[in-house]
């Protein structure tokens, strides 16, 4: 730990306000996601705890605000603050799991394509090219309308669009790594291919993935929110931040703005924090930008 405190990375981190703000926002969401259920009295998805008499209460600083509901309530008398905390859990969960799945699948395919080349490379990379020629939201939308709504289906759709960027990056780095003499040396030493890939190539292609993975969590949160807003994302029983915006959007023009604005702010802060930190990582980990 003392070594880390003296490292250039830590030094630059303490001097980068965007990195501190970004990681601060990420830490805030990490805390909210982990501790959320303990911070609020109401479970917004326990129908028994809802009271229709509490519906559409404004935030407490407005006239008619209820001290029990800081950010007001929605049409079912659901606490908006509690909904945001529970919704962020679902959004962050989907973003993280889809990122991990994409990263694993994309990295494996990229390594195989780059190391073995030939028809395997051609097939994997042509699929990737075709996918990249469409906007990812379009492919996700298409998949979701085909398979129906659900958290698991959102994860599948996001992974299906997310692996491409890893595969391409890893393939590129693999191609340049296997030209280096230490890979030749490993072959000359008689190491089998799977060991060369695992022990020599993989660790040397991972660095750029850290940046991609970080930024991708933000992208996935946004895509999931878009899908849910369009009604093809998560089911109504597990509302993510995007679905909360959609629910609130229906009554936005009736002046009941708080039901959609607060989930929207939450998404904005989450994605903003991830991107700020991702940019910092990109600058730090890319030797060519130094």
């Amino acid at each position, binding site marked *: 730990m003392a070594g880390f405190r003296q490292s250039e990375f830590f030094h630059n981190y303490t001097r980068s306000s965007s990195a501190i703000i970004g990681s601060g926002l990420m830490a805030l969401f990490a805390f909210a996601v982990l501790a959320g259920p303990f911070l609020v009295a109401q479970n917004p998805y326990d129908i028994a705890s809802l009271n229709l008499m509490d519906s559409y209460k404004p935030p407490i600083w407005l006239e008619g605000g209820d001290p029990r509901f800081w950010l007001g309530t929605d049409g079912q008398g659901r606490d908006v603050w509690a909904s945001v905390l529970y919704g962020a859990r679902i959004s962050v969960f989907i973003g993280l799991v889809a990122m991990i799945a994409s990263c694993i699948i994309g990295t494996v395919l990229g390594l195989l394509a780059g190391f073995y080349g*030939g028809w395997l490379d051609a097939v994997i990379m042509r699929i990737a090219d075709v996918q990249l020629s469409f906007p990812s939201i379009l492919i996700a939308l298409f998949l979701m309308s085909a398979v129906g709504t659900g958290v698991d289906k959102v994860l599948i759709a996001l992974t299906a669009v997310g692996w491409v960027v890893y595969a391409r990056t890893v393939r590129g780095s693999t191609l340049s790594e296997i030209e*280096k*003499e*230490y890979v*030749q*040396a*490993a*072959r*000359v*030493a*008689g*190491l*089998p291919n799977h060991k060369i890939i695992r*022990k*020599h190539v993989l*660790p*040397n292609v991972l660095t750029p993935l850290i940046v991609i993975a970080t930024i991708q969590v933000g992208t996935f949160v946004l895509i999931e929110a878009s899908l849910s807003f369009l009604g093809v994302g998560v089911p109504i029983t597990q509302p993510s931040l995007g679905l909360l915006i959609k629910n609130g959007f229906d009554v936005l023009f009736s002046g009941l703005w708080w039901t959609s604005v607060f989930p929207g702010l939450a998404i904005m802060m989450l994605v903003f924090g991830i991107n700020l930190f991702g940019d910092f990582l990109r600058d730090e980990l890319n030797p060519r930008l130094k």
Partner: protein
Amino acid sequence: MTDTPLLEVQDLRTYFHTFAGTVKAVNGVSFAVRKGEVMGLVGESGGGKSVVGFSILGLIDSPGKIEGGQILLEAEDLAQATEDRLRAVRGREISMVFQDPMTSLNPLHTVGRQMDEVLRLHSDLDAGARHAACVAMLESVGISRAAERLRAYPHQFSGGMRQRVVIAIAMLARPKLIIADEPTTALDVTIQSQILKLMRAQIAGTGAAMILITHDLAVVAEMADHITVLYCGNVVERGRTRDLIEAPSHPYTRGLIDSIPDTTRRLDRLSQIPGSVPDIRNLPQGCNFRDRCPRAQAICAETEPELTQQHASLMAACHFPLRPGDSA
């Protein structure tokens, strides 16, 4: 020194089938290496030297292919061996030292781990014995505090030290043959001679043989017992080092020797071989060297010269070979 060679390469042909045509990188190369001997493989860039090395190890990647010939390691033909057999040969019986010590070690693993990897693969020693073997090996290549240095990463070593580590890794499994592909080219001259001495001492200590691939005749003159000169994938001359350096019979070898700076002679201009290597995708008929050769005559454009016995121990492929005392 025994009479049966450790490695005998006969009429090796390695071709690369590219879209732009077939590149005959190695086109009928024969030579032999005996135990305890250093064989220098010399030639210009693009002469097929490294391809010979990789062919011996069976590491020619598509679109390259060994099209013919035999690679006999103690009477076993490696050109016909299965991939499993070749993997057992690599590292254990034949190992390789590469040109650039900056990239021939994995930057993310400690030196100790990279050495241990070879022993895990090619010996059945336990962890303690492997560690002891690594320490002893590292000490024998002149790295002090070896046990401590095993835990260091490649970037913590200088270029010359890294090449020592690379040699240590190559020697670790006690191979019978070491292929050194331009082992000192990336090093500065003072380190060069240290590394050459070290390699000499290592093979003298273990009785291994070495193929030293280089474009630098000065290096082979110092190191090798025998020299094989390649030009455009063909052997143009071979023989004992002394004979070949003192009185080469092929004009190409003569040209290579004359282009070494010599401090005992006063020259206004260093001599060079005129022209450059022809495009090996479509080699001309006859002798490949004739366009650059001061002795070329009409017959050189028609028939390719065969490798024939010359004076002393030399074999050369030339219609008009030089005799001792001839000037080029």
